[in-house]
C-alpha cells in the first residue's frame, strides 16, 4: 500500500464528489497554485440560516489537490458558512489522512484557500500552508 496514494485518495481523484458547476450559486471563487499550475474554482449555495447547502468544485490538479477538495466537500455541506473562515491547514490535512510533505502542502490546501476566498473574500493561504 502506498503511503500517499492510498486507495481512497485515488478513488476521490478518479471519482471526485461534488465536482462540476452549480448555477445559480450564491458564492464563488477561483484561484490557482502558481507552483504547479493547478487551478480550482468553487460554486456555493448558502441557505437562509447561513449554512452551506450545496457546493461544487471544478478545475484541474494533482491527486492530492483533487482528493482534498472531494473529501472536504462533504464536510462543508451543512456547515455554517462563517465557520469556514476558522478552518486551518491542519483541518484539511487531517481529513486527508496521509503524510503531506512540505512540497505538497499547497496542493492539499488549495481547496480550503478557494473556499475561504469565496466566503470571506480573503484570498490568502490558510495558516499552515508551509
Amino acid at each position, binding site marked *: 500500500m*502506498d503511503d500517499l*496514494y492510498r486507495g481512497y485518495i485515488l478513488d476521490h481523484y478518479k471519482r471526485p464528489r461534488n465536482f462540476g458547476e452549480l448555477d445559480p450559486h450564491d458564492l464563488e471563487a477561483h484561484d490557482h497554485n502558481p507552483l*504547479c*499550475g*493547478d*487551478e480550482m474554482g468553487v460554486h456555493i449555495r448558502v441557505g437562509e440560516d447561513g449554512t452551506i447547502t450545496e457546493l461544487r468544485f471544478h478545475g*484541474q490538479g494533482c*491527486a*492530492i489537490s483533487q482528493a482534498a477538495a472531494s473529501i472536504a466537500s462533504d464536510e462543508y455541506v451543512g456547515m455554517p458558512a462563517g465557520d469556514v473562515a476558522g478552518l486551518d491547514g491542519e483541518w484539511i490535512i487531517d481529513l486527508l489522512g496521509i503524510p503531506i510533505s512540505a512540497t505538497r502542502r499547497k*496542493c492539499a490546501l488549495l481547496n480550503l484557500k478557494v473556499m475561504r476566498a469565496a466566503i470571506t473574500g480573503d484570498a490568502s493561504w490558510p495558516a499552515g500552508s508551509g
Partner: protein
Amino acid sequence: MEAATTPALDVRADFPIFTREFDGRPLVYLDSAATSQKPAAVIEAMDDYYRRHNANVHRGVYALAQEATDLFEGARERIAAFAGGETATTIFTRNATEAINLVAYAWGREHVGPGDVVLITEMEHHSNIVPWQLLCQETGAELRYLGVSDDGRLSLDELDAELASGRVKLAAFAHISNVLGTINPVADMVARVRAAGALSLIDGSQGVPQLPVDVGALDADFYAWTGHKAVGPTGIGVLHGRREILEAMRPFLGGGDMIRTVGFQESTWNDLPWKFEAGTSMIAEGVGLGAAVDYLSGLGMERVRAHERELTRHALERLAGVEGLRVIGPAGAGDRGGVISFELAGIHPHDVAELLNRDGVCVRAGHHCAMPLMRRLGVPATARASFGPYNSREDADALVAALQHAREVFQI
C-alpha cells in the same frame, strides 16, 4: 526510424554528485534543462580561486589582484571563443534573464515607441516574455507572438508575414524550446529579421549547453545564455551583442567599474564589455564558467549533441511503449534537443514527478516558466525529462520503468 547508435559520451564519473544515493538508489538526474550538474573541474576551479587567488579585479596594483584579474578576464576570452563571440562584446550578467532585461531596458527604452512591434513566440520562457511585456507597457508598443504548430514548430512564413508590417523593431526567440525541445531555425530567422530592418535576440539558454553555437556565424544582434545550464555555476550569464549597437547603447546599471570618469553631475562610460558590468563582478563564477567551457570544449560540442540526440532518440522510442503517454513537441530526435515533455493519461504531472522521485528519477513537473505555451497546448502542466552529457541509456530506461511503476500505483 532513425538508426540506433551507441551514445558518444561516458562522463558520469566526472560529476561528483553522482556518488550520492537516494534510499540506496543511484541518482537518475533528468532535469538538466532546469540546471545542469557540475563537473569536478568547475567546482575545483572555483575552490582554487577562493583558496589561492581571491582579490577584487581591475585596478588592483598588487600581484594577487593581477592574478584574479587575469583569471577572470582569461575566462571571458575562453567563454567568448567557445560561443564564437568577440571578447569585448561578451558581457557578463547574472543569468540569461538579466541579459535579456539589459537589452529590453538599455536598448528597448531608447528605440521602441508607440506603434512599434516587439515580436516573440508562443514557445518562449517567461524570461523572454515578461521583459518585453514591461517594455511594451511602458512605451505603448505592441507585443506580438509567432504561433506554435501542434507538433511544436514555428513557421517562417508567419515570421515573414509579421515582418511585412514594417513595424517590428525587435524579434526575440528561443534557440531551443525548454518545453518542446524544438531546435528553431534561428539562422534563417535572424536573416529574415535583419532583411526587414529589425534587430534579433536569441535566447540561447538551452542552445549553448546542447549544440555547437557560433554566435558570430549566426549573426544575431543579441545572443543571451546562462552558465548554470552549461555545467557552470549559478550567478553568471552571458550576453553577446553586436559591437556598434552596444557602443551606441546607454548603460544598463550604473555604479563602479562601468565608468571611465565620474563628475558631480555626470559620468562617462568604460569600454566594452565593462560599460555593462556595474559593481564588483561575479569573479569566482566567471572562473567557474571558464572551467565549464573548457570542459565542454574537451568533450566537443558536436559529441555532446550526438550523445544527447541518441539518448533522446532512445528515450522517445522507449516512451512510445508506455501506455497512455503522449510526448509533446516534434516527433523525431533530428530537430529536437534533449528535452522531452509528456503527459501520462490518468496521472497529473505533479504526481508523476512525485512517484518518479521515489524511484530516484528526477524530472520536473509544472508549467516550466512557459504559461502562454501551456495555454496554447491546452495542458495545465507537463512532466519533463531533459538530458545532459552525463546521462546514459540506463537513465532513460529507469525513467520508463518508473513511469510503468507509477501507472501501477495509480491502478491504471
